[in-house]
């Protein structure tokens, strides 16, 4: 079951969805449900909350599908709903981790050169590390990143949404997305390599 496929016949299915056709809804849940659930779980950091938020969001989407105007894809709309609901929950629990100072500038002196040598492994050392352990470390550190970094990395690198879909889901501009993706990747690199 793939959650990231293109929604085919969007407009036709949308008519069925708006009419409350349960078969059409089942198709949507099978297609996007697993990815939405994985996204919410990773963003919230625990499975029970991920399930609760995804379930709530999907029921809410079903009830408010009439408001969907088709200006973005249904996929983006679904991610937006789950995302907003998850972030609300994270803020409500006062667990939101703000980005703060990303520290990228700290690497460089006034002339734009490296202040100190770049820390961490060199290319060869990385190849010698156990791939599985390293992947576990990346996954773990991703789960600790500030939420603004985590959300773009999850959507871009893990869920594989394209830029337009992410911009629509997060309601941000392409320029803002580029900047946020770069900062998020830099933060992940620092967390994995320098920690």
């Amino acid at each position, binding site marked *: 079951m793939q959650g990231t496929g293109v929604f085919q016949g969007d407009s036709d299915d949308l008519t069925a969805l708006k009419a409350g056709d349960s078969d059409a809804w089942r198709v949507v849940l099978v297609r996007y449900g697993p990815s939405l659930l994985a996204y919410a779980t990773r963003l919230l950091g625990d499975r029970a909350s991920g399930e609760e938020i995804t379930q709530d969001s999907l029921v809410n989407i079903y009830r408010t599908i009439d408001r969907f105007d088709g200006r973005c894809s249904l996929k983006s709309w679904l991610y937006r709903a789950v995302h907003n609901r998850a972030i609300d929950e994270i803020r409500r629990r006062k667990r939101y981790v703000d980005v703060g100072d990303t520290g990228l500038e700290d690497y460089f002196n006034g002339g734009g050169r490296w202040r100190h040598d770049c820390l961490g492994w060199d290319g060869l050392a990385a190849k010698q590390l156990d791939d599985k352990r390293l992947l576990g470390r990346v996954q773990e550190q991703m789960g600790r990143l500030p939420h603004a970094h985590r959300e773009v990395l999850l959507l871009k690198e893990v869920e594989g949404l394209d830029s337009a879909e992410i911009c629509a889901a997060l309601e941000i501009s392409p320029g803002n997305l580029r900047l946020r993706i770069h900062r998020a990747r830099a933060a992940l*690199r620092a967390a994995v390599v320098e920690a």
Partner: protein
Amino acid sequence: MVYIKCRDVVAKISDIIDHEANLMTRMRFYGHIMMCKNCRRYFDQFKEVHALAGKVTADDLPPDFEQVMGAVMDEIEGHKDA
């Protein structure tokens, strides 16, 4: 070729990785990377972590999604019947 600073090289890495940098930027970038040990190391690390982030995928999909989706379907079907 116009000199590019380490800070600007680091700022361009995502554009390079995502194939969104133009030819001139790519030439300056790789020209600098060849000459600068620190930027080269940073770039290697960045690429490695980026590649690994892309491998955090569907293999750990929640196993109980059937249950969650079932609950949503119950709601949808219940709503229709109501």
